[in-house]
């Protein structure tokens, strides 16, 4: 290569730079581009078990019931009404609306719908993500269609929160031409149709998904864009830059506190905060020393100052949590605040001294945490908790870090660790999903019950635990929502008294969008683009321009 070639190459490169810096025509206003750091893991409603998958599925198809946008209140969707419940609470009957069609024009009948829902019970447990073993098999005995308009669910046990489960993505109508009865189809070939407002025109699991309006959709959530493009990002920092530069219109879900602080100062951007359902708490193993001593766990509950974690570590981007049930859910209370008024070091000392602990003989506590799984800030707030507990002068705390794959089974197995941090996100937006899992059947390592063959709840370890189990059982079958709320309030008091777990804080979700993007004022929380505490994002409700 000689100098001439070098010069030619350099000039060529410069010309190329000049050429490529001429932007192609801007995207049509009719396109809305939503960035997300989530990935598609499955589009099969009988299998999908991830927030983003459910979001997509709920946009391309509908179920018998749904949530009113921006809320967790239920309303009829494909059903004509809220259905009929048999007196024993075991049979739910729904009537299908007329004229519902899939995006390819195939009519939806009750027979087709019931057959597709039965996939949850038949092939669902064999699918990789296996949502069925959590949200179908334990509760649903059979799904039948006595005629072309009626669908009947026979439950294994009466559960009052079944309508909340029914409103979720696993129970939408899936297209029988795409999702066959005998096989899971996680990544069907596009186009993927449902009976919802949109259909998937094309997608690449790593780059983007294109959704277009379903021509046969007759429901209330009419699309307001020619197409919605969901763009996948591997790094939230890049997504934050992309929404600032206007490459995307909406950036959704996972931002760090630092990113949010920076984005708040950017003009032409709005940030909607959704008090979602992601919580953090300490699992306390009630069969391991010293946590088997009620005074020790009460002392911990009295000493922990949640506001210090919120302010010092998260700069106010998370909220203190005083019950496992976050605010906004049925019957949520501030049970821990009322009972312990934390931080209350004097009370903590009294509890410890009642069990014979002192400065000379402190309670020795090991707190475990996964340093990477819940983000880098976990180590910081675990340090804060350590200092708070040691401020009593009667607790000596050792922090132990363990990689997630070892940590999770060791903690929830209820044998290896005495205490450790864990996070939770609901499977269905109901208070039962924030209480039952930590109490029933070893309770994710709390051991307030011991598993028993054939029992859904297990055997309580003491009288208070028995009271709690009974209350939760009652609440789970109570169909009167006011009575259910009352039962959950009572249950939270006992839960706090037992300190089954120690709720710490709940994390809000954030949607960042450009100033020309608007939510629908016809529904709740237009400022969060109508995303409610159930974290369901209806793409039809956003409008550009």
């Amino acid at each position, binding site marked *: 290569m000689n100098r001439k070639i070098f010069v030619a190459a350099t000039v060529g490169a410069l010309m190329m730079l000049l050429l490529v810096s001429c932007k192609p025509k801007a995207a*049509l206003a009719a396109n809305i581009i939503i960035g997300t750091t989530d990935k598609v893991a499955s589009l099969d409603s009988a299998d999908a078990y991830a927030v983003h998958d459910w979001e997509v599925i709920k946009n391309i198809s509908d179920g018998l019931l749904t949530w009113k946008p921006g809320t967790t209140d239920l309303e009829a969707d494909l059903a004509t009404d809220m259905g009929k419940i048999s007196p024993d609470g075991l049979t739910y009957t729904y009537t299908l609306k007329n004229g519902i069609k899939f995006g390819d024009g195939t009519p939806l009948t009750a027979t087709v719908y019931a057959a597709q829902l039965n996939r949850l019970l038949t092939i669902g447990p064999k699918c*990789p993500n296996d949502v069925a073993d959590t949200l179908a098999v334990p509760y649903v005995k059979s799904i039948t269609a006595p005629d072309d308009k009626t669908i009947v669910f026979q439950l294994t046990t009466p559960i009052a929160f079944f309508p909340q489960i029914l409103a979720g993505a696993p129970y939408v109508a899936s297209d029988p031409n795409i999702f066959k009865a005998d096989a899971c189809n996680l990544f069907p070939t596009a186009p993927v149709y449902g009976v919802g407002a949109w259909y998937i025109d094309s997608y690449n699991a*790593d780059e983007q998904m294109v959704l277009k309006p379903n021509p046969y959709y007759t429901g209330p959530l009419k699309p307001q864009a020619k197409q919605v493009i969901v763009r996948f990002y591997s790094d939230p920092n890049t997504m934050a*830059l*992309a929404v600032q530069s206007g490459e995307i219109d909406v950036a959704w879900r996972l931002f760090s506190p630092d990113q949010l602080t920076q984005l708040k100062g950017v003009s032409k951007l709005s940030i909607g905060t959704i008090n979602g359902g992601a919580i953090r708490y300490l699992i306390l193993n009630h069969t391991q020393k010293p946590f088997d001593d009620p005074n020790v766990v009460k002392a911990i509950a009295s000493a922990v100052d949640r506001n210090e974690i919120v302010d010092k570590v998260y700069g106010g981007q998370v909220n203190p949590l005083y019950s496992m049930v976050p605010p906004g859910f049925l019957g949520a209370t501030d049970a821990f605040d009322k009972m312990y008024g934390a931080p209350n070091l004097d009370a903590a000392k009294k509890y410890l001294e009642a069990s014979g602990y002192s400065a000379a003989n402190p309670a020795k506590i090991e707190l475990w945490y996964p340093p990477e799984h819940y983000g880098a800030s976990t180590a910081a707030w675990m340090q804060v908790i350590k200092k708070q507990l040691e401020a009593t002068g009667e607790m000596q705390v050792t922090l132990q870090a363990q990689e997630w794959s070892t940590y999770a089974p060791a903690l929830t197995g209820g044998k290896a660790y005495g205490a450790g941090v864990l996070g939770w996100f609901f499977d269905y937006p109901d208070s039962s999903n924030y209480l039952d899992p930590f109490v029933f059947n070893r309770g994710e390592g709390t051991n307030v019950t011991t598993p028993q063959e054939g029992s859904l709840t297990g055997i309580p370890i003491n009288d208070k635990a028995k009271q709690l189990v009974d209350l939760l059982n009652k609440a789970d079958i109570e169909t009167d929502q006011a009575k259910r709320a009352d039962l959950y309030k009572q249950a939270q008091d006992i839960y706090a008294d037992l300190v089954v777990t120690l709720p710490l804080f709940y994390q809000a979700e954030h949607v960042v969008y450009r100033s020309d993007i608007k939510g629908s004022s016809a529904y709740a929380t237009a400022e969060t683009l109508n995303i409610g505490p159930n974290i369901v994002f209806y793409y039809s409700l956003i409008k550009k321009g």
Partner: protein
Amino acid sequence: MSPIAILALIIGIPSLLLLIYVFVRGSTGLRRYILTRIGLTLPMIFILATMVFLILRILPGDPVTSALGPKGTPEQIAHIRTTLGLDKPLVVQYGTFLWNMVTLHFGNSLVGGHRPILDEMSERFPATLELILPASILALLIGVYGGALAAAQRKRVVDFSLRIYSVVIYSLPVFWLGLMLQLLFGLRLKWFPISGRIDAVIGTGLKTVTNIYSIDALLSGNGPALLSVLQHLVLPTITLGLILSGVFVRMTRVNVIETLHCDYIAAARARGIRERVLIYGHALKNAMIPVITLIGLQVAILLAGAVLTETVFSWPGMGSYLVERISARDYTAVQSVITVFAMLVALISLAVDVIYSLVDPRVRY
């Protein structure tokens, strides 16, 4: 036919033809050399694969429970362990792993969609190729001509500047440089896009065949798509290319200076050949021989740089795939990607050595 199969044909057939040509037309010594290098490459790949397999199993924790998290039921855990063959003895797992590697059946991903890893890699690999090829060309252009220029201007301002440049650019973290370019050219000046391979809207109209978008845009005659692809390539290419160029500048400079002291250069200079011709026409050619070796060595660094560059620019290639799967503790995918990377480095080293033996006839075993 999958994109990776098309790519394998595009790259594989010419490479095979070249190898056959060299083998048929080359001397006995050259043939022996190539056979020896191939003979050394195979056990190297085998050792690398074995190390990857063992290291991932020595690491603490169970990948299945990690992937499922606290909500995973014992039935789910048992089901996935059986599906993946993790319930079998280690020796059986190792045998299966080696056989799968040979047959390119990497199994299914442990997390997310549980898709076949080969499918996922075949979607991701073209993106990485589309990034590392122009980045390598850029690094070579800057490195070789920068090095030659520094040698020509030895101990002058240009030389000092280029030497400082080579050290500074090599020591810069890739993600920092990428972020700075994004902030300056993407956010402030708005010259180039910040992320992705193609504009979201324009991308909907691009028919993909090879998954190398620039080629696909050319094949389909889609001008706006080609323009958009080139725009999206600029910042990641510059990021990766600049980082790599530092080593080439230093290496070329040193070699050109050494070559300039050779007798044939002195003879050429005595015959009155201009200095510029001497450097760029004569010295640089010989100085390039060690640089070719360096290219082979830089492939591993190039791939490591691609991991960070792809993450910063949300470039859906093999690098970002590896990062995602490490975060998700998807050991099956991690094991496969590392093995493929190792194979790639080994094969490119082999190719570089073959080329080196062609360029420099003194190299023989």
